[in-house]
């Protein structure tokens, strides 16, 4: 111990000196180390905050600002008296933000227990989801009931990312009366979404699918507004930075009178058919009915597959717009036009007579073209031929006119062409000609083709709308009537667009038109008139008309028409008419499918509509709500 102590002590002293030196050096090294790393931090900060500032500033802005579309309010649709045909009702939708949901399938499964959620709805939601951004609200259910809203509100804490939104849902108060005119809106599907301007529709669930809703989609939709919203990381809105209000869609005033439309619906009760009424002076379509009809309201939020199938599979085809797209042989309703053609082309005079033995035969042919009256009408002029609807007279006339003259003349009245009604999907019908047959049937025109065209059979096909329009044009003495449904379009800036009017005129001799009209009056009032059953006591006006009974089924030669024939093959009953005969106001065309005789079945229906229009004149026509 004592020996080692001084050594140890001296070493310790030396060590302390050395230790101090080393320690000072070490502190210096640490100081330099710390300083260098601190400068490193500074350099990195300068890099981020000076060099990268602009880049990160943009990122920060994009982080927090979200552009959100405000859907415009869809325009309201009114009838000519300002009654609402299509409106927007406040409702609630259940929407999901997929990004905020951990397990979507589980959430949907749990929602199923809570609400009335079908597989169809879920499938639709998945389809919709593909076209929404993950952080966008995607609708699952539209128009929840009050009860469903209450139920979900109670369970809401268990469904993060699922929320109720106040929305406007399209509603059609007159439902079944307007479905073939106004049409309906429905959920935008995948295919449609591709063609729509994304900005305009990103907040909209609906678009017009048929009818006026489809035709005037652009005007009814309006213009979407948008907000710049400051959002947090969860996508919740914190603050609105700027806002551009949407422009509501234009309101449409239809020419339809819903009262008349109702009457049209009522008179067609129990039959399949169509009725179109046109105001002659203006081209306003007053009633446009295809029967049977359907309720458009279920389509708005997505009709169930089952309900849709029921509508689709019904043999009465309620979703088929007969007035616009139904093609029928015009039958005898074409006779006034063919007769007028004869007069205009100077084939005969009004009083020139033709003998009707009950059939017509081409020289050298055995085939007999039969008259509906087996024993014939005897010697008839045009007046009688129209009044009694003599077929043989028109077989002769048609043969003399020839198909091309008939084609050219009738086409001026709109046969074989779209009427230009502002409703998508219209059929053009068919007005045959030699050229048409060569092109489409690869066959030459036969004399027999002309003969049956003269009584509105054969190739010729018309829509009820075309019949009404041609009748209106005839009643208008050749001033062409172009029908329209929207008579006025009122935008939010109060600019108004009225329906366009055409000024084309068919050059007709007034005398000839007077003669044909007088014959059409006799159809109703003549002793042998085919529609005399519609005369009622006390009428202050007279109706001019023409019946038609269009063959659906060709009765073979030497065969009797079987009264018990299958309903599907029964004749279509048609009637064209206008009134008052001396001052035409309204033209009405009626088609009753497989109805039988035009005079007994179709004519009374038209008479009721005419009567309502003329005896209850439309007052305060342009009243705004």
């Amino acid at each position: 111990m004592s020996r080692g102590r001084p050594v140890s002590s001296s070493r310790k002293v030396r060590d302390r000196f050395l230790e101090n030196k080393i320690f000072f050096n070490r502190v210096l090294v640490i100081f330099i180390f710390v300083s260098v790393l601190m400068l490193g931090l500074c350099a990195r900060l300068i890099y981020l905050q000076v060099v990268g500032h602009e880049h990160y500033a943009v990122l920060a802005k994009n982080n927090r600002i979200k552009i959100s579309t405000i859907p415009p309010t869809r325009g309201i649709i009114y009838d000519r008296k300002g009654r609402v045909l299509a409106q927007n009702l406040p409702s609630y939708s259940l929407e999901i933000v997929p990004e905020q949901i951990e397990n979507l399938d589980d959430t949907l499964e749990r929602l199923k227990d809570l609400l009335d959620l079908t597989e169809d709805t879920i499938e639709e939601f998945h389809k919709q989801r593909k076209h929404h951004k993950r952080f966008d609200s995607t609708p699952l259910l539209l128009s929840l009931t009050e009860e469903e809203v209450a139920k979900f509100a109670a369970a809401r804490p268990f469904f993060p990312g699922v929320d109720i939104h106040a929305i406007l849902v399209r509603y059609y108060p007159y439902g079944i009366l307007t479905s073939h005119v106004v049409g309906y809106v429905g959920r935008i599907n995948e295919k449609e979404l591709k063609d729509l301007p994304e900005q305009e529709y990103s907040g909209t669930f609906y678009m017009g699918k048929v009818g006026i809703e489809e035709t005037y989609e652009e005007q009814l939709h309006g213009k979407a507004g948008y907000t710049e919203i400051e959002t947090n990381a969860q996508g919740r809105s914190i603050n609105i930075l700027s806002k551009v209000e949407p422009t509501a869609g234009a309101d449409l005033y239809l020419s339809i009178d819903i009262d008349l439309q109702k009457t049209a619906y009522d008179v067609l009760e129990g039959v399949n058919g169509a009725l179109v009424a046109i105001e002659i002076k203006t081209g306003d379509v007053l009633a446009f009915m295809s029967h049977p009809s359907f309720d458009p309201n279920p389509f708005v939020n997505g009709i169930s597959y089952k309900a849709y199938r029921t509508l689709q599979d019904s043999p009465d085809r309620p979703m088929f717009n007969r007035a616009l797209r139904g093609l029928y042989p015009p039958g005898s309703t074409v006779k006034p036009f063919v007769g007028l053609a004869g007069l205009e082309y100077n084939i005969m005079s009004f009083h020139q007579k033709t003998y009707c033995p009950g059939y017509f035969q081409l020289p050298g042919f055995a085939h007999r073209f039969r008259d509906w009256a087996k024993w014939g009408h005897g010697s008839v002029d045009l007046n009688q031929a129209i009044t009694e609807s003599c077929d043989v007279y028109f077989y002769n006339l048609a043969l003399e006119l020839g198909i091309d003259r008939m084609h050219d003349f009738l086409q001026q009245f709109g046969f074989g062409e779209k009427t230009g009604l502002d409703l998508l999907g219209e059929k053009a019908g068919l007005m045959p000609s030699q050229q048409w047959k060569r092109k489409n049937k690869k066959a030459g025109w036969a004399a027999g083709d002309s003969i049956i065209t003269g009584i509105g059979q054969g190739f010729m096909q018309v829509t009820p709308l075309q019949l009404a329009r041609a009748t209106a044009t005839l009643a208008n003495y050749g001033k062409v009537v172009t029908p329209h449904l929207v008579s006025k379009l009122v935008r939010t800036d109060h600019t108004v667009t009225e329906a366009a009017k055409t000024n084309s005129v068919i050059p007709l001799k007034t005398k000839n038109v007077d003669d044909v009209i007088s014959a059409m009056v006799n159809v109703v009032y003549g002793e042998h008139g085919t529609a005399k059953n519609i005369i009622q006591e006390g009428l202050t006006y007279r109706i001019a008309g023409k019946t038609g009974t269009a063959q659906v089924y060709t009765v073979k030669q030497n065969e009797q028409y079987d009264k018990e024939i299958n309903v599907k093959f029964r004749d279509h009953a048609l009637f064209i008419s206008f009134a008052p005969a001396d001052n035409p106001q309204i033209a009405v065309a009626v088609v009753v499918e497989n109805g039988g005789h035009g005079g007994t079945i179709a004519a009374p229906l038209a008479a009721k509509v005419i009567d309502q229009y003329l005896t209850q004149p439309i007052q305060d026509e342009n009243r705004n709500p």
Partner: protein
Amino acid sequence: MKIETRNEHFQSPTVLGRLLQKLHIDIPLFILLALISLLSFVILYSASNQDIGTLQRQSVRVVLAFCLMTALAHVNPHQLKRYSASLYSVGMVLLVAVLVLGKVALGAQRWLDFGFFRFQPSEMMKISAPMMLAWYLAEHPFPLNWKQQAIALALIFVPTLMIAKQPDLGTSILVASSGIAVLFFAGLSWRFIGYSVLLFTSSLPVLWNVLHDYQRSRVLMFINPESDPMGRGYHIIQSKIAIGSGGLSGKGWLGSTQAKLDYLPESSTDFIFAVFAEEFGLAGCLGLLILYFLVICRCLVITLEAKDPYSRLLAGSLTFAFFVYVFVNIGMVIGILPVVGVPLPLISYGGTSMVTLMATFGILMSIHTHKKFLPH
């Protein structure tokens, strides 16, 4: 005699100064710490979305922490030295206890629940490990034989690995660096340091396998945060956006959009520096860095002026640990280091790290103000 002159040398001319000296408070360090704490309130108010409750809770912690600092400043380093070994042993026992029965908080097992308060033994290790090592190396001056070296390394790396196992990567880094700092200040040879660095680099693949999955993903995210912007890279990306968008002068106090709109996670704790950078810009950041640098400089002065080996080893080590603290936090927030859970010293919301930090400053002050009583 010598002691008395030293005493006179430190005599403050003002009454307040004399009072503070009686309290064993180091004035420059105290002022710096008070400034940083004040800044903490300013930025916490903004980062917590102007929540007064947060400030109230934090102020209680700050007051407690300053009291603890003052209390520790009164404890003679000689006493500290005497209890170093026992404190370390208690710490180790508690670490074992945590591994066995600790509460799992935030997916990591760090807490011991004593009913009335929860205690994090790893925090205690931040101080007791360097104390233990300083004590051991003061007793066994360099050069060490292989056995002593092994003991010294074991003293550092056993608790480090246990803390890393919890898993608390941040604290284990701090414990390891404070321990290594003691070795460094004690005169660890450069050759040994060279070999160690070489060994460490070559053992990285092994270390990689030891890491928890979440720790690995953090490291990977650090290398390429953009690879998963909505997932694990989110923190780093959003933090960089916050800092970068702050620019030169910042968006102004309470002007942070990243934090306010919840884009920035952990905005009042680990990532508070990003909020600070967004609101006060480069100017503010440099100011804060200078404050921290001044704290470190003052502590290095204290370290240099410490007279006995234990004190200066401990002071140097604690100073270096503080720097590592600052560097690791800011480094991760500005995207030059992986995300490890280390708060920004004296500014982040939370009591544990605040208390530990103020304890270290208390020890440093004690070392500085007790020099006259130390036997040589």
